[in-house]
């Protein structure tokens, strides 16, 4: 059996280099086909009539006018009066779906449907558990660590403040949806689904349709964003399959309109908290107390792990979950961590300010409370401080310079797991030397195709273009869903194991002709040669011709505790932000954000850095702009569009600096996921920089001008003693 390890640094030909994504040419030329781009012969367009009420019962539905319209081919009731499905629990909930020959006809037909509702009471507001009342709240028991009373009595200074962040939505640019088509006389279903889980979606589609999972095939070449919200088929995808069946198997394209996408296709839960932190004047943290609450809609919210990372010895905390009439939460890039980070790093920086201590020194002073990753955080804090000029540019809270523009610095740290998921692949070597890898994984834009290509080509000593990568089809060997930053560890480990095993088999075929033992051979620079005598070599193609007529196919696998130290978990990252705030307008501008991040062995430095840049930019979006604004009275989302659900533009992000921790001490840990960890800190780090600039904490994200001005106005309130 081959020894499963990554090549040493001096032997790597592709791994760890800056390599452009291999599907880049397809994406820049418009040739990349997303599920939303599928145009199939005879395709129908599906639309859904959605609830205008946050809470209502469907009394009756009249679809006769819609069904009578020329071009309407199938209608399916999703909320059937008189059944448990007739209660609509959020605005945007599905009522009726139909499929028609084109979009205008489908839209007209939706408008022709008549529905009678019984409107019921609703709650959509989540920022105050008191107004929510018992019906909508689930209070967890108080959780105690150490002796909080003693901890606070030992404190020389205690700060108390409100912190939090609202519900935000994923706002994937490719909406959720699919093209569903029945084949072979309605026996088999081909699903062009926009999904983060190609292999895993098969069973989830088959179950509600009551067909064997083997009759379902999921295909997806490219996905236009998921961020945690696209792990399986949605009810509208299953409905599209039902409509297709009713229409005699004609393909049905069913994708959310933008408003529905923002209302019902997932969100990140809110969390708010009143936090107390006790500290000594030398910076020692003695105690933590928090009452927190939040919501993720009908299914409730999360429970962020607070205090985050810093294991404060004495704690008292209590969390209340609000269950309201808003479309349900879904996983959102590092679930619970951004919330925990905001609720922890902000009060900690307030505590440092209260004792007149530089938060850099304060974090360093308490670094041992971060546990086993303390040395990593310590190294990263130093590097980040250098990159942003912390010691030169930092000032005590409140920029005292004249004029309305106030500048400040903030910092934050974060963590994540990122262990590789179970994953299988087939590596196929043809006698002519051509190589392909097949895996039922998906490339979210993280660079999955590219990293697979890098691993196989590096292992075989071949150029990148000598290897074909085939993913995005459930008929390929199964691989996990892309969530939890588990993809890169799982797919790279499977590809490496499979490639090493394939190479071992190829060596045994070639060894006799080189008069060597298989274990004495190596694959380098397009040749297979004797390690001790490189002159004795054959080309890759010559070696593969020894396979005879039959290609060599080898299954590469990764599974929990698989042999070899190829993937690992647990990363730490540090971010620092430099912002300017106009205290007359309340507008916050990002000057610079620095991200220092480890993720074990980096397969492709270019796409890895892109993950971190992307995390920072997405972080600027939710730190400054994003909020799913619900109207208490009507129960509807007020900004289900992209003018008023604002994302950052190219001018809004300042200068971003990314530093990856690589090399000795990091590489040998193996590959660890990266998509989520750097997405955790931006909210806290920007809020901390704003507090440092203007001398007062803006309690809740996003840091919109009104909130900044209100906080300045309220100086003297809860946070202003700082």
């Amino acid at each position, binding site marked *: 059996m081959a020894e499963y390890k990554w090549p040493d640094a001096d032997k790597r030909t592709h791994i760890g280099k800056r390599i452009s*994504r291999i599907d880049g040419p397809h994406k*820049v030329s418009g040739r990349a086909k997303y599920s939303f781009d599928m*145009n199939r012969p005879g395709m129908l367009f599906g639309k859904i009539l959605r609830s205008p009420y946050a809470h209502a019962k469907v009394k009756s539905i009249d679809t006769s006018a819609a069904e009578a319209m020329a071009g309407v081919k199938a209608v399916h009731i999703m909320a059937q009066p008189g059944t448990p499905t007739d209660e609509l629990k959020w605005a945007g909930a599905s009522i009726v779906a139909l499929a028609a020959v084109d979009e205008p006809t489908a839209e007209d037909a939706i408008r022709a449907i008549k529905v009678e509702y019984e409107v019921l009471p609703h709650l959509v507001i989540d920022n105050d558990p008191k107004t929510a009342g018992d019906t909508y709240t689930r209070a967890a028991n108080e959780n105690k660590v150490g002796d909080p009373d003693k901890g606070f009595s030992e404190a020389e200074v205690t700060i108390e403040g409100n912190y939090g962040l609202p519900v935000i939505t994923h706002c994937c*640019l490719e909406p959720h949806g699919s093209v569903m088509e029945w084949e072979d006389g309605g026996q088999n279903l081909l699903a062009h689904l926009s999904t983060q889980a190609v292999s895993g979606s098969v069973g989830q589609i088959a179950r509600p349709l009551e067909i064997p999972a083997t009759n379902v095939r999921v295909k997806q070449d*490219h996905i236009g*964003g998921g961020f945690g919200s696209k792990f399986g088929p949605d009810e509208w995808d299953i409905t599209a399959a039902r409509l297709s069946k009713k229409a005699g198997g004609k393909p049905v394209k069913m994708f959310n309109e*933008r408003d529905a996408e923002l209302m019902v296709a997932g969100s990140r839960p809110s969390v708010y908290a009143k936090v107390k932190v006790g500290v000594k004047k030398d910076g020692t943290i003695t105690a933590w107390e928090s009452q927190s609450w939040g919501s993720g809609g009908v299914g409730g919210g999360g429970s962020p792990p607070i205090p985050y990372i810093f294991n404060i010895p004495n704690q008292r905390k209590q969390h209340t979950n609000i269950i309201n009439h808003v479309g349900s939460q879904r996983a959102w890039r590092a679930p619970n961590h951004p919330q925990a980070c905001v609720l922890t790093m902000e009060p900690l920086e307030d505590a440092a300010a209260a004792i007149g201590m530089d938060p850099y020194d304060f974090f360093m002073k308490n670094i041992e409370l971060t546990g086993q990753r303390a040395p990593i955080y310590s190294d990263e804090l130093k590097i980040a401080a250098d990159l942003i000029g912390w010691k030169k540019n930092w000032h005590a809270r409140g920029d005292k310079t004249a004029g309305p523009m106030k500048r400040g610095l903030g910092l934050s740290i974060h963590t994540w797991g990122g262990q590789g998921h179970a994953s299988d692949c087939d590596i196929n070597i043809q006698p002519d030397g051509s190589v392909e890898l097949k895996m039922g994984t998906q490339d979210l834009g993280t660079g999955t195709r590219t990293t697979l290509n890098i691993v196989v080509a590096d292992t075989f000593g071949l150029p990148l273009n000598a290897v074909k990568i085939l993913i995005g089809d459930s008929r390929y060997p199964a691989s996990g869903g892309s969530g939890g930053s588990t993809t890169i560890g799982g797919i790279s480990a499977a590809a490496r194991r499979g490639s090493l095993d394939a190479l071992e088999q190829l060596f045994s075929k070639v060894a006799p002709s080189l008069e060597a033992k298989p274990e004495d051979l190596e694959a380098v620079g397009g040749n297979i040669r004797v390690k001790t005598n490189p002159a004795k070599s054959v080309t890759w193609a010559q070696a593969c011709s020894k396979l005879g007529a039959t290609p060599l196919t080898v299954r590469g696998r990764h599974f929990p505790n698989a042999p070899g130290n190829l993937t690992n978990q647990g990363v730490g990252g540090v971010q620092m932000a430099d912002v300017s705030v106009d205290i007359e307008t309340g507008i916050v501008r990002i000057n610079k954000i620095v991200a220092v991040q480890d993720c074990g062995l980096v397969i492709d430095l270019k796409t890895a850095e*892109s993950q971190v840049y992307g995390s920072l930019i997405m972080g600027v979006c939710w730190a400054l702009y994003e909020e799913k604004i619900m109207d208490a009275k009507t129960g509807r989302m007020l900004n289900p569009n992209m003018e008023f659900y604002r994302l950052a533009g*190219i001018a809004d992000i300042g200068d971003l600096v990314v530093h990856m921790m690589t090399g000795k001490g990091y590489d040998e840990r193996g590959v660890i996921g990266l998509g989520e960890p750097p997405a955790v800190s931006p909210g806290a780090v920007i809020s901390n920089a704003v507090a440092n600039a203007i001398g007062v904490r803006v309690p809740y994200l996003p840091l919109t001008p009104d909130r900044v001005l209100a906080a300045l106005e309220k100086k003297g309130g809860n946070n202003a003693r700082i």
Partner: protein
Amino acid sequence: MQDDDNVKEKGSGLSRRTFLKASGISLSVPLVMGYRVVKVSGADVKIYGPGKVPLSLSINGKSYNAQVEPRVTLLDALRNELDITGAKRVCDRGSCGACTMIVDGKAVYSCSTLAIDAQGKSITTVEGLMQGETLHPVQQAFIDNDAQQCGFCTPGFVVACKAFLDKNPTPTAEEIKKGLGGNTCRCGTYVGVRAAVAQAAGKGVKRNG
């Protein structure tokens, strides 16, 4: 109060009442062309629909024909009728730029342009930027600088960058930030886009380059 019906539309020389009275008269072009022309106060006015009308578009130097209702956008006509799917439908109301096309030399949001209004104009989509199998310098720069992740905003961004550089071949960093503010990316590729535009500009991308 002013009689609303008699408010003159600026420049058209028509009041709404006159327009309504006039519609349906002086039919001078057969319906097969997709519209009727009515003479109102001496001006020719094209009336399309309400049903499907023939559509003729010039896209990336080629001529395409389809039948669409007059309310169909340029974006939807290309995506749904002609299978030209590079431009994406995201916000569908002119705020994100994923649908950007170049129409008669100008970058437009094709989700907010009617297909029938684009007839007789020269339309360039992302599919039209390559010369054979050679990428346009903007496209190559997007790859080199990894100005893409999921890639869904990329076609619109590439087209917007091309149109921007056609107008301003040597932009400053500040001009890049201002000039490309009409395109939104969710994965967060703006750092790459900035570098890509700078690179493409350095390679001497020129008008119609």
